[in-house]
Each structure stands twice: as C-alpha cells, then as structure tokens.
C-alpha cells in the first residue's frame, strides 16, 4: 500500500487567501487494465474532502474518479488571518481516510 501524503499551502492572492491541497492518491477509475495480469484495476478514488477553518466546516467537495491522480485542489478562504486554524479530512471509496491540520501562513 502506497503511502498517502497530504500537504497544504496558503498564499495571499487578489481574490483572497487561497488554500491549496495536494494529496497523494492513485485515483483509479476502475477502467484501466493491469498490463501484467490482464485484470481490471479496481476503482480507488477519493470521494470527499472536507475543509475546516477555525473549527467550522467551510467547504465539502464530492470528488469522482475523473479527478487526476495526486489531486491538487484549491479553495479561497474568507476573512482568513495569519495563524488561523485549518483542518482537512478526506475519505475514499475503499474506506481509507486521513486528516491534516495546519494554519494559515501568510508570512
């Protein structure tokens, strides 16, 4: 089982503070065939990503298998200040999940 990593980054942009998430995940569609065995690779993809800003859920994304491998997803926060708490949680269709906590870093 490959290791799942998750990273978050915040940066000040014209439209507000942007939060970018990078999750290491195969995002298998279930339509690919394993070249060695000739068998279909079962679908394995993230279904939901939830973002909390200072303890409050601000956005939930339902994702399908059409999201690219190692998803990079971006959001814009409202009224974000340096040091604000962020928490990200994802689950996939095979029951795997992970949580990452961080802060808004505008330094």
């Amino acid at each position: 089982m490959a290791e799942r990593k998750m990273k978050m980054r915040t940066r000040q942009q014209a439209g507000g503070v942007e939060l970018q998430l990078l999750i290491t995940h195969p995002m298998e569609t279930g339509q690919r065939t394993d070249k060695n065995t000739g068998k279909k690779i079962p679908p394995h993809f993230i279904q939901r990503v939830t973002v909390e800003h200072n303890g409050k859920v601000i956005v939930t994304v339902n994702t399908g298998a059409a999201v690219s491998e190692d998803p990079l997803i971006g959001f814009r926060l409202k009224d974000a200040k340096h040091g604000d708490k962020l928490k990200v949680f994802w689950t996939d269709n095979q029951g795997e999940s992970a949580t990452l906590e961080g802060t808004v870093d505008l330094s």
Partner: protein
Amino acid sequence: MKSFIKLPEDPVTHLPRRQFLKNTLATAVLLGAGSTGLFRPGWALAAEWPKDAFAAKALEDAVKALFGTAEMSPSTAVKLKAPTQAENSSQVQVQISADLPDVEAIAVFVEKNPSPLVAHASFAGASGYLSARMKMGQTSDVYAVVKAGGKLHMAKQNVKVTAGGCGG
C-alpha cells in the same frame, strides 16, 4: 442505455411508481425544510456522496441527479479557466470562480467523459472558488455549473485533447 424493464405504474398519475414516490418525497422534503427554515448550507453538507450523479452517463442526467433540475442559464458571472488545448489529458487544470452572492455549490462536468461529473463542492463560508486537475477521455466541452440563490448558472469551454487520451 435504456432499460427495458417495465416499472409498475401508479394508478393515479400513471408515472412509474418509483418515480412517483421519488418526486413526492423530494417535494415533501423540500417543502418541509423550506417552511421550517432548516435549509442551510450545513444541511447540504451532511448529505451522502451523490452516487447517482457520479454514475450518470449523460451530462443532463448528471446535472439533474445532482441539483434536481437540468435548467441552467449561461452567465458571465461564472468564470471558467481551462486550457483550449490539453497538453496532458490526465492532468487538465481547471479554475472556477463565481462573482455571485450566496454561492451554494460549484460542480465541474466533462461532457464526453464516461461519467461527466468530476467534482461537486458545497460552500458554507468559503468563497465561491474551486480549482482542480482532472482527466479527460477526449476533446469535449467542460461545464462549470454554479448554484447561487437557488438557480443554476453555467459557463462552458471546449478543451481539445490530442494524442494520448486516457490509457491511449
């Protein structure tokens, strides 16, 4: 593909029974939620992963399964940023932002993908903005659908996919 199994009809409406029940229940739930003021973004967030919408094979079916209606109007307030030509069809970067008050949700669809729905974000405090990378099977229109003020606003753009493609 059409199903040839005949569903039992409701004697009053002549709708297939299952469809009739679904319509009635959906209306009842909406009415109930609306009248008691329970309809908040938080309520939408608690919903299940929309399996039917992700399984739909046609764009219209997917929009309908997700939002309950496929009626959407083109809007310049919805900004969709996507390449006109995808260099790598398995990593197509899209950016959607909506200059609308009370953005409830943003959904991304690729019309000619086997399942058009890519992602569906529900907002409860974040700005109406979403960026992601997605896979495209072939050249297709990309749709950004924004739900704001109870209505669907849409922007679309054609993205060309050349050599390669998914598993090609």
